[in-house]
């Protein structure tokens, strides 16, 4: 970050500001003229994001052509805020284009483009189609502002805007009341996280006198450790809100109320990773405070574990994926927490591919079975929708860490880094466990949907989705399968070198186990989990999965082995999952609701003072006068001594 260049005129970086601006303009156009444009509006939306994707690619290529030490550019457009003269605060509308931003640009624009195309088919029958595309565009623009922000403040602007868009999109089908509630919850929880971010920002400004990354990050070593710890913790509070980590993860599963492409784009591939991006962006800061980093990693590990456990017991195909997202985000935080920022970002990228794919596949399935979301009422869809099934299988293998898929490389890297960090062995153990659980619930997900006997309702005619939906699936499947090539080995993979100018390097400390053993342990646990899930749900009559009554008894009588499963695996597992889910609902939700209720309670008491009588108001004025006099008196007494 020391060597910041101004982009040469006429280069793609010089025009990089068009990347967020074009989708934003398109969003405005669609919001105003959407009704008149009708079908055309989707074309406008796709063209605009396509433009951004092309330009992002050109930016990437341009950066690659530059010498390694000259890949950090700041493109200043104009002043946004300027206060207090020369030594005051000055925030520009400026883009920071560096290797980290460039890979994020690629992810957001290309995955965004695919999801736009997918929505063409998915939202074809919705009357508010233009509005939906406008929101999607607006979201893409906001996310692009976030990843190209050159200062904490511009990043924060994007940060809030993506939250707003997510809120609009989650509540897109507001006809259902609980959807609106989910949207409100998402917004309020995120605001709680934002408190941390905002305070961190003010603290940064008070300490460094600037908010630009180029000013602040090189100077972190000059600041007092206490301040850095506070800033690091507060930024992480913001990150836990946006990236759904303990204790602020409750909103993400509820946010699945939104249309599926939205879940794929916002709640899987891009927005929720903003917290990871923030920590990676601020990596020089976290490098100074390794203990806070370790805390980040522990929170990530705990979240990964809890969310994976909950995912094992869910029956809604999107909620499973939502908890899985929370869990995978936990992995990313393990990566950035232990100090291997490349590993965290790497997992962010591969997860972007396979989780987007999983969500889109889920949408495709819902499309086929008349918007059913209960995986107990699916099954046997493999032959009906082969493209969706095969691409899903690839994604499932990737997320489970099957060798040589993208998830394999990125997850191994995260776990290896955890193992290499002294004091993080516990995290590694948890991570391995979660890997097994991930394989288990994803196998369950896949088997219950695509294999086994058909259980869908009468009158449903499953069919493969139109090409506009399957094409993105195929493209993403290629990415999920081959994404690992980005960084085949932690030491000299492509991404590792590419991100060097942007993020702090990882100081490995030697593994506490040999590499082979590490790899073996992870693979072994994952294989056991995956096989267990597959066998369990292939063999069992699916009616036993959470459905009581006669069906369950019948199943029991047929397979005695179920009894064993039930006692050894299912019961404790389910109990744990239920406990976590209950904690999620009552504990965390309860805390959030409790806070709201407490505020309302205080307000109700306060409201009583508002009697409506002039005499009591006058009394209040008098009391206030006395209060002020008392304050002055204490000020004079204590201030005089001071």
């Amino acid at each position: 970050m020391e060597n910041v260049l101004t982009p040469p005129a006429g280069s793609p970086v010089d025009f990089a500001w068009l990347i967020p601006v074009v989708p934003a303009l398109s969003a405005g156009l669609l919001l105003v003229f959407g009704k008149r444009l009708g079908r055309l509006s989707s074309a406008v939306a796709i063209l605009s994001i396509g433009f951004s994707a092309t330009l992002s690619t050109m930016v990437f290529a341009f950066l690659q052509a530059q010498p390694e030490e000259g890949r950090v550019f700041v493109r200043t457009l104009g002043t946004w805020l300027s206060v207090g003269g020369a030594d005051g605060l000055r925030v520009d509308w400026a883009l920071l284009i560096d290797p980290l931003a460039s890979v994020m640009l690629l992810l957001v624009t290309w995955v965004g483009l695919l999801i736009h195309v997918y929505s063409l088919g998915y939202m074809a029958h919705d009357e508010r189609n233009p509005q939906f595309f406008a929101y999607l565009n607006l979201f893409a623009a906001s996310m692009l502002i976030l990843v190209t922000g050159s200062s904490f403040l511009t990043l924060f602007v994007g940060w809030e805007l993506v939250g707003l868009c997510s809120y609009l999109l989650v509540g897109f089908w507001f006809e259902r009341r609980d959807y609106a509630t989910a949207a409100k919850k998402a917004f309020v929880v995120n605001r709680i996280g934002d408190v941390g971010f905002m305070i961190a920002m003010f603290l940064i400004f008070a300490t460094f006198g600037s908010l630009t990354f180029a000013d602040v990050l090189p100077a972190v070593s000059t600041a007092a450790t206490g301040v850095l710890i506070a800033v690091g913790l507060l930024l992480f509070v913001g990150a836990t809100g946006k990236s759904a980590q303990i204790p602020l993860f409750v909103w993400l599963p509820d946010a699945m109320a939104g249309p599926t492409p939205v879940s794929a784009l916002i709640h899987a591939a891009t927005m929720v990773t903003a917290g990871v991006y923030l920590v990676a962006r601020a990596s020089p800061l976290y490098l100074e405070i390794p203990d806070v980093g370790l805390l980040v990693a522990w929170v990530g590990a705990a979240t990964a574990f809890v969310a994976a456990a909950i995912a094992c017991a869910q029956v809604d195909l999107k909620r499973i994926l939502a908890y899985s997202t929370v869990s995978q985000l936990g992995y990313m935080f393990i990566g950035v927490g232990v100090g291997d920022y490349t590993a965290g970002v790497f997992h962010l990228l591969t997860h972007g591919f396979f989780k987007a794919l999983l969500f889109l596949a889920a949408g495709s399935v819902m499309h086929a079975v008349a918007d059913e979301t209960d995986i107990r009422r699916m099954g046997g869809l493999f032959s009906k929708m082969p493209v969706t099934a095969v691409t899903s299988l690839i994604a499932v293998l990737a997320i489970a860490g099957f060798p040589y898929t993208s998830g394999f490389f990125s997850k191994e890297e995260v776990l290896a880094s955890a193992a290499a960090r002294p004091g993080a062995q516990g995290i590694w153990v948890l991570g391995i466990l979660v890997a097994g659980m991930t394989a288990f619930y994803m196998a369950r997900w896949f088997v219950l949907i695509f294999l086994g006997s058909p259980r869908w309702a009468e009158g449903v005619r499953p069919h493969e989705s139109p090409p506009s939906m399957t094409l993105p699936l195929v493209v993403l499947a290629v990415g999920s399968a081959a994404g690992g090539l980005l960084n085949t080995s932690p030491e000299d993979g492509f991404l590792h070198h590419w991100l060097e100018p942007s993020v702090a390097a990882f100081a490995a400390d030697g593994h506490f186990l040999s590499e082979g053993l590490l790899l073996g342990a992870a693979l072994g646990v994952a294989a056991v989990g995956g096989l267990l899930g597959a066998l369990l749900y292939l063999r069992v009559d699916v009616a036993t999965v959470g459905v009581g009554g006669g069906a369950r008894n019948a199943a029991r009588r047929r397979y005695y082995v179920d009894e064993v499963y039930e006692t050894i695996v299912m019961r404790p597992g389910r109990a744990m999952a239920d406990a976590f889910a209950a904690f999620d609902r009552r504990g965390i939700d309860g805390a959030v609701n409790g806070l709201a209720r407490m505020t309302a309670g205080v307000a109700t008491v306060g409201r009583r003072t508002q009697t409506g009588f002039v005499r009591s108001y006058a009394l209040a004025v008098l009391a206030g006068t006395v209060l002020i006099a008392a304050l002055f008196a204490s000020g004079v007494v204590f201030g005089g001594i001071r």
Partner: protein
Amino acid sequence: MTLLAQIPPLQIPDIAWSAISPELVLFGVGILALLLDTAGPQRLQASFLVFGFAAAGAGYIALSTEQSVLPGLVGLAALGQFALTAIWRDRPRLLSALLAALGFAGAIGVTTWQWGAYSGRLVGADAATFVGTDSLLGGMVAVDGVALFTRVTVCLAGLVTVPLSFAYAEERRIHRGEYYPLLLFAATGMTLLASSADFIMVFIAIEVLSLSLYILAGFAKRDLNSQEAALKYFLLGAFSSALLLYGIALVYGVTGSTNIAEAGRAFSSLDAPQGMAVAAMALLIVGFGFKTAIVPFHMWTPDVYQGAPTPITGFMAAATKAAAFAAFLRVFVGAFAPLQWSWTPVLWVLAALTMLAGAILAVVQNDVKRMLGYSAVAHAGYVLIGFVAVNRAGVSGVLVYLLIYTFMSLGSFGVLALLERRNHKAMAIDDLRGLGRRDPVPAGMLALFLLSLAGIPGTAGFVAKFAVFRAGIEAGHAALVVIAVVSSVIAAFFYIRVIVAMFMEDVPEGVAAEAPLAPSTGMSAGIAFSAAVMVAFGTVLPFLLVDLADQAATFVS
């Protein structure tokens, strides 16, 4: 004849009338509008009479002093009002509204001219006559950055209020002739308050604006709520005026002067903290605190805001606050800065109380107007952060905040006025359910204003909050900023509640038959203008505003 012969020829003493030119414009237009209304059917004759006198006066001044610009303008204005009266002689309300709008626009124009002189862009002989480091008109009036900026804020508020009021007042059958003159008189008081350099002037200005607002608050004579609002505002206002006056008397007692700057100098040269000085400051805080609705002097706000006619509520919330804060700033941050060790802790506590109480109490409100009333209290608290910073950044932050708040407030109350017009009743949050579907444009506008009030980045509200928070941090009041952030999170909740009701809930049963919204041109224009300002200052132009406010953050000494 013999008496007249003894009087020497016309000599114009050196009185810097230009220092209060915006007030003169506002007041003059107010009187004119009142006269034309009083004259009834004879308004054309009355207008001609005014034209005749004004033209004669202007001509005489032009001949005897060889000035051409000022008399020319006066003559043109006189001709203009006659032309307007001639055109709309059968539509007295429209005429009145037009005159008021022109009056506000004219006052903005005059203030811009003063600003040119202030910022040194206008170099001329008469620039020095009214802009300087000293206060003018016998130490009564200060034409400094804070005064000029606030004058513009107040006049902009008036300019937006006029079109918002027109159809609303028509609909509620409260469209009487005094409405616009009172608005102009209130604005006169406010601009005067913003530029008072003397405590006596502060008091007079507060009385001028309050008396007008008492009447405006109760303008819906037949509405019990409106009556209640007016009476409460009047009684409590009188009470707080008394306390303010007491404070002024004590200041005079300690320092021997009612001039704000002189009193400040005398205060700072006191050897030890003196009881009487402290009591004076306490009472002044009470007086200003009442006008700016700071906890615990805010009790009147929700009742009065709820009862007053909605456009007036918007105007009161925005412009009164701006003017009172300007005077508050001039007295404390300007003159009493050397004593800041004694009063900043007090205002610190009040700021914290105000932010928290405003936000928390708003949560449980169901009436949207009342909720916005409490939110206005919370916003006064945010403004106080810039206040206790006691530095230039703080003053500039306060100015920015108040200007932006003016548009947020007028915009949101404007949309409410629009809705009330149709529903013929106050709006509860439940009444807004599904509004986004039926009337997407007004609902979208309201959502924009609410998001801005919540301080979401990308809106002007964020720029405003950021400006004061930054000043607070710079001055070392980090804890206060943390409280402010917490308060704004609580506040976000109830703003979002309205948005959720509008966009994500269904239209309640039985409302489908409701008449469609028919926004008048004036209302649409007022709301759209506020929204445009909101977006412009939130996204591409904030630096312009912040820059201007930075230049304006000065006081005369």
